[in-house]
């Protein structure tokens, strides 16, 4: 088996696993069916790791595998490219997906149909990041989309059906815009591969003119909608809050980032890509701050987490956009992109952990309102949790996202602020960090002990928490801690992979210096102050206004249309 074939394993193995799980459903029953299903899941989520381990040295040496699927003629076939970035995003996706699947084993949804849709989703993530063909990207995003609509709707609540429906409508509309953008570019260039389009556009007078710019902005807007950057974020909070917990973890951790990094491969080649990246960087920095204010106002625990996902994706997008703007062939661009990936990876770990531990807690407590729920630690104990695993895991996640050393969130935020130093983004992100601390103090209150006897009513059935739930939480929690401690080495590794083993990038980043420590102290202290301000009557009235601002279905489409128009206008002017 040659290297050219092997890079398809992260796509093919989950698909094979999905087919086996599906066969397990229709051909077998009972124990045999379960064995075949688990075999399929092992093939899909476990075996790709062998490939990742095998290929690490080659990736470290800066090797990239590219070609045409099926070895057809380049002008007509589908180009692909498996490079350091694709490798890293695959690692991100497969680690969170494995943890989420194990969690679902304990908390539902489960069964062969769920496994097969879940594996298909994982496969489409791997395909989306390694394709180098615009129409194939369209297909991958559609597969990704349809799997996530079904997974979101798999929660029985009607709210989840509405969230899934809203997401479906707005993203299907966005994909038609994508198709029109594809039409514009195909008409100008006659090819569909990223490189082919870019080189053909460069040969045209003024790089294709307004048609090329508008087409590009349609494509970027359609993908940015999936990523939930600020004007296009409206579908996300409901979808992530109402999906089953394991799905929330994958949606927030992996699904909103893969399209972003897939898009970076398009933008890095296009003539107008730098300018589009610049605007997205600004949008990302604004997103980080605005979403955290909304998060602070939420009362539903999972919706609060969902807004934090938007805020954190804002961090990632601002560094990512700046990287595209300066170009990832330059040293500064490599550092920015590496910081963006580090935060994406670490966010996937700690946000997955937060969704899982909060999900475990609210399920046991039967209450999701952070203003009402108290004494959650005792409720968990009543469900047979002697050693407070869930509480500790929640704390690890909360401290990570609040950037407390030595956890991983601290390391990746330090990398981002190092890379963005001196830009306007830096200050917006600084302010957003304060809000993050405040809102996690607010969320942590659900664990504040209550006086004995006055505790929230215990559930009538003190069923024990199944072991898969604990296993997946511990797995992600350990990764968070290790990621924080090993951050310098990992950052160097990511830098090398993104610079494709070439260009020595000089960085003077010290993760644990006295300056960063003082900054952390300032942020934490301001966060506590902000929290105290938020629980004053005035503060909570203001937050209530933010929480109950008008949000309707049509708003999703209006903001998508206006966002697209703004991007097109920015590129044209």
């Amino acid at each position, binding site marked *: 088996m040659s290297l050219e074939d092997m890079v398809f394993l992260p796509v093919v193995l989950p698909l094979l696993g999905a087919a086996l799980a599906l066969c397990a459903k229709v051909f077998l029953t009972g124990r045999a069916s379960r064995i075949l299903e688990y075999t399929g899941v092992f093939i899909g989520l476990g075996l790709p790791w062998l490939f990742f381990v095998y290929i690490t040295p080659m990736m470290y040496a800066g090797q990239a595998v590219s070609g045409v699927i099926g070895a057809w003629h380049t002008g007509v076939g589908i180009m692909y490219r498996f490079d350091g970035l694709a490798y890293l995003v695959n690692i991100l996706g497969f680690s969170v997906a494995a943890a989420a699947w194990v969690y679902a084993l304990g908390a539902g949804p489960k069964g062969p149909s769920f496994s097969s849709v879940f594996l298909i989703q994982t496969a489409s993530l791997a395909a989306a990041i390694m394709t180098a063909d615009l129409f194939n990207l369209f297909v991958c995003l559609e597969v990704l989309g349809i799997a996530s609509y079904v997974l979101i709707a798999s929660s029985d609540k*009607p709210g989840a*059906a509405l969230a*899934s429906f809203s997401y479906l409508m707005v993203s299907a509309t966005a994909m038609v815009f994508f198709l029109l953008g594809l*039409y514009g570019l195909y008409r100008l260039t006659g090819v*569909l591969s990223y490189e082919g389009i870019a080189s053909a556009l460069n040969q045209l007078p003024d790089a294709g003119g307004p048609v090329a710019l508008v087409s590009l902005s349609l494509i970027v807007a359609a993908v940015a909608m999936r990523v939930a950057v600020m004007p296009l974020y409206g579908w996300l909070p409901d979808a992530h809050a109402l999906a089953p917990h394991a799905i929330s973890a994958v949606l927030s951790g992996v699904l909103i980032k893969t399209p972003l990094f897939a898009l970076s491969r398009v933008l890095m080649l296009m003539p107008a890509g730098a300018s589009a990246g610049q605007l997205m960087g600004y949008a990302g920095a604004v997103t980080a701050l605005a979403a955290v204010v909304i998060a602070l106002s939420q009362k539903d625990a999972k919706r609060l987490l969902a807004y934090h996902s938007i805020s954190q994706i804002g961090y990632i997008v601002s560094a990512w956009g700046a990287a595209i703007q300066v170009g990832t062939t330059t040293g500064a661009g490599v550092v920015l992109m590496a910081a963006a990936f580090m935060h994406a990876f670490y966010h996937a770990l700690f946000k997955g952990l937060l969704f899982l531990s909060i999900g475990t807690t609210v399920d046991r407590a039967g209450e999701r309102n952070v203003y009402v729920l108290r004494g959650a630690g005792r409720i968990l104990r009543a469900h047979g949790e002697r050693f407070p695993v869930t509480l500790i895991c929640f704390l690890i996640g909360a401290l990570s996202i609040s950037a407390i050393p030595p956890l991983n969130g601290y390391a990746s935020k330090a990398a981002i602020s190092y890379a963005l130093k001196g830009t306007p983004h830096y200050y917006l992100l600084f302010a957003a960090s304060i809000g993050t601390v405040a809102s996690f103090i607010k969320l942590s209150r659900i664990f504040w002990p209550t006086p004995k006897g006055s505790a929230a009513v215990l559930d009538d059935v003190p069923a024990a928490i199944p072991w898969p739930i604990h296993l997946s939480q511990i797995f992600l929690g350990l990764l968070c801690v290790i990621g924080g401690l090993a951050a310098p080495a990992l950052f160097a590794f990511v830098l090398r992979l993104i610079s494709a083993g070439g260009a020595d990038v000089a960085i003077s980043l010290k993760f644990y210096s006295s300056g960063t420590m003082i900054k952390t102290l300032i942020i934490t202290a301001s966060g506590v102050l902000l929290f105290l301000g938020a629980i004053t009557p005035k503060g909570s009235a203001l937050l209530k206004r933010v929480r109950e601002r008008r949000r*309707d279905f049509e708003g999703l489409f209006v903001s998508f249309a206006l966002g697209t128009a703004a991007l097109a206008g920015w590129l044209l002017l």
Partner: protein
Amino acid sequence: MIERILILLLFLVGFSGILARKNIIKKIFGLTLINSAAVLLFVVEGSRVGSQAPIMEQGISQVVDPIPQALMLTAIVIGVCVTALALALAFRLYQAAGSFDIDEIRRRVHDES
């Protein structure tokens, strides 16, 4: 030229259906219409470069561009699949809220959660 303007109008009609109609089935109508508009655009424009169907029998020399046609096969099917799923969700929302009206559904679902 006129063809493209008409297709643009079709697209805008569909988009206005998604935006302005309150009935979610009508919104799904809008979605299928904008999808058809995109398909029509590709095929109408792609057929300008030749005069024969892309089936290479004897004596065929000037075929139309087959690539947009092959792409649109995929796009049509994906569009219908998404529509079917949207309809299933609409059915479920009807069962939950007793109405296809989006405001009514939002209100009912909001009250419950």
